[in-house]
């Protein structure tokens, strides 16, 4: 049998991370929007994501655990290189993760604290993920397949710009999710949040794209920008990617204008899909920019094959029951959801 195992696994890990960004993106976004809501609205906001956030975050574990299992050399370089933001992300996720339950159990001061912890943890995790992404795009210093850079490599003006983009993007996902899943005043508020986050995302997406092309000539070449000249032959095959992002933004705007409930969220997901595909097009086949390809980082063939058999059996089931859980909790959030 001649399956290209490293390529298949690169696809699986990339899909897991994409699912994570889209799914945990909207529930982190709900946390980012927490400070702007009233206490009663916050209860509804949290009820709208409580049944699904744990499943959403599991895609992050698959991204990390899968990277360890499928591309151990990349895992062993990326984690130490981005040590600071990874640890910050974990601490943020811990605080917001326990806040789901703790907030419901707290009395007056406890409740206020865990409300703040949910918002603070969500924002911290989003900021840290922005630094991880920015530090990743910048590239990692390698020597003999090990990380050889400094502890603060991930902190530059460029990565700060990426952080702003990620936070705004998650806020847009969160706002459009709430437009879809809530009613009455909160629904109206979420619509206004989406109107603010949408243009912000458009501007930041353009700024990050431009900065990436300017700061990282290697990516620019992929897109046809070779120094002074522009090569349409390189750009045209990739053109559908930015086009998809534009379509996504238009879907968000038209959806909001026509008072659609579901379309703005779908549009926001398209924007993320476009940004993600754009990055993948800039990197492929690197898994650690810009010194390690996914083939160099891949685990032993027999380990990849063993995992693929199990994955082929289990992953369809995971997708099926994940969709089913979303189906069970479909529709507008109602007050009888909780068990507390």
């Amino acid at each position, binding site marked *: 049998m001649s399956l290209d195992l490293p390529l298949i696994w690169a696809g699986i890990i990339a899909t897991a991370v994409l699912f994570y960004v889209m799914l945990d993106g909207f529930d982190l976004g709900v946390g980012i929007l927490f400070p702007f809501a009233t206490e009663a609205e916050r209860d509804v906001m949290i009820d709208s994501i409580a049944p699904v956030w744990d499943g959403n975050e599991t895609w992050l574990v698959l991204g*990390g655990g899968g990277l360890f299992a499928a591309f151990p050399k990349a895992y062993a370089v990326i984690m130490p290189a981005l040590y600071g933001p990874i*640890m910050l992300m974990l601490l943020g996720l811990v605080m917001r*993760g326990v806040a789901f339950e*703790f907030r419901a159990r707290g009395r007056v001061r406890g409740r206020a604290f865990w409300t703040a912890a949910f918002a603070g943890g969500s924002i911290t995790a989003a900021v840290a993920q922005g630094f991880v992404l920015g530090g990743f795009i910048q590239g990692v210093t390698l020597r003999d397949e090990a990380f050889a850079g400094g502890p603060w490599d991930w902190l530059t003006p460029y990565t700060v710009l990426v952080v702003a983009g990620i936070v705004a993007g998650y806020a847009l996902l969160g706002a459009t999710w709430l437009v879809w899943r809530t009613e009455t005043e909160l629904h109206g508020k979420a619509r206004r949040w989406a109107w603010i986050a949408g243009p912000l995302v458009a501007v930041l997406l353009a700024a990050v794209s431009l900065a990436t092309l300017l700061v990282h000539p290697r990516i620019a070449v992929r897109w046809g920008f070779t120094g002074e000249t522009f090569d349409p032959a390189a750009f045209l095959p990739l053109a559908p990617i930015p086009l998809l992002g534009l379509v996504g933004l238009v879907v968000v705007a038209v959806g909001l204008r026509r008072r659609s409930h579901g379309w703005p969220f779908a549009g926001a997901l398209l924007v993320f899909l476009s940004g993600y595909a754009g990055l993948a097009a800039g990197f492929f086949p690197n898994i650690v920019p810009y010194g390690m390809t996914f083939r160099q980082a891949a685990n032993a063939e027999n*380990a990849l094959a063993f995992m693929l058999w199990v994955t082929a059996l289990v992953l369809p089931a995971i997708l099926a029951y994940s969709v089913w859980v979303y189906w069970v909790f479909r529709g507008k959030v109602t007050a009888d959801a909780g*068990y507390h």
Partner: protein
Amino acid sequence: MDVDALLLSRLQFAFTIAFHIIFPSFTIGLASYLAVLEGLWLGTRNEVFKTLYLFWLKIFAISFGMGVVTGVVLSYELGANWSVFSRVSAPVIGPLFAFEVLTAFFLEASFLGIMLFGWKKVGPGLHFTATVLVAVGTLISAFWIISANSWMQHPAGFSILPNGDLIATDWFKVVFSPSFPARFAHMTLAAYLTTALVIGAASAWRLLKAGDEAESRMSLRMAIGMFAIVAPLQLLVGDISGKSVEQLQPAKLAAIEAFWDTRTEQPFHIAAWPDRELAGNRWEISIPKLGSLITGGSADAEIRGLKSFEPRDRPPVAVVFWAFRVMVGLGIAMIILGLWGAWLCWKSAPERSRPYLMAAVAMGPAGFVAVIAGWVVAEVGRQPWVIYGVLRTEDAASPLLAGQVSLSLLGFLIVYAIIFSVGVLYILRLIAEGPVAGSHELVDEDRAPGTPLAAMPEDPG
């Protein structure tokens, strides 16, 4: 490699994993208990079981959440702090970690949503299925994690390529490495015991404070049943697990028993102060010949002592020696609690014996202490190796600076201190309120706010 960064990484990993293990060892048992309660309720329609289910479900939600978030941390720490270990071990045990996520983590996370929030969205049969799947998921999770850890204790089913990389040669031997079956049974029983001790303590507390309560009487009896059956069984399984240590990791066994010289008629040290500098015990209280009898099956059995290993290959002795004694001591106390409770159930009723209720409350945290002590025996006893005989801990760390790791360690200390103290406070508060208080809350939520029903006075009682 920075020596301080290595030490800090070890401290951070020991802290975060010891903290994490508290929650799975409780929720593995609690998930099974909830499945049993819901099954009994569906089978008998006895409302006591439903009240107990809804009560323990709330405590499950708090502890499961803490287990999830502290578990996510570990899946990233492996690469962040132990990049060499990750790179070396991945060809062999990488798949086991991936299987844990794919076969257990997703199952638990998805059906937990149904379990907590689907009470009114799906039918009782489907809800029960969700509870069972979460319980099964926790066991599958333990299966893979203990499998990976057992391979680190006694690597099997692999060979070393000319370039130094490891490669798996027999997946069955990797997954079912020699110490795995006994260790998996030992861990599962430990989780069940830990949960039973908490349930027993909570029930006993209610019976002491609130007087007679049908729910607490029922849950106390269920807990006693678990003590009486599982605690003696655990002694047996622990002994089998210990026997495998004797063959597979003689240095660990020597540390557990503080044997320094290789000899027959080893004494059994009840208490001792082992000193690595001295290569002997500073003082000891011992029973002659019993050590050889327990570990080797006869007083004439020759048991290897620590001096037969190079000093650099000896694990820390005092920690392992004492952790083992704490674990076994608590295990014996659990057996006594089980037999005493069973005798009370047979004679009259355990809730009438104040001393028994007080003992049950005191033993509430014993399972956690025993689990952590057992983990210390397993992990510290394996030192100086992280993969026994293959990779030393000192060679396994990431190229980090001490400053970075001290910052992250400080972050974990602060955040975990907050979530631990608050989590325990909220759980104790729920336990103090008791199972019946919880079921009233649920009745309240059946009434939509603002409806005439919501304004009606509470039912008395």
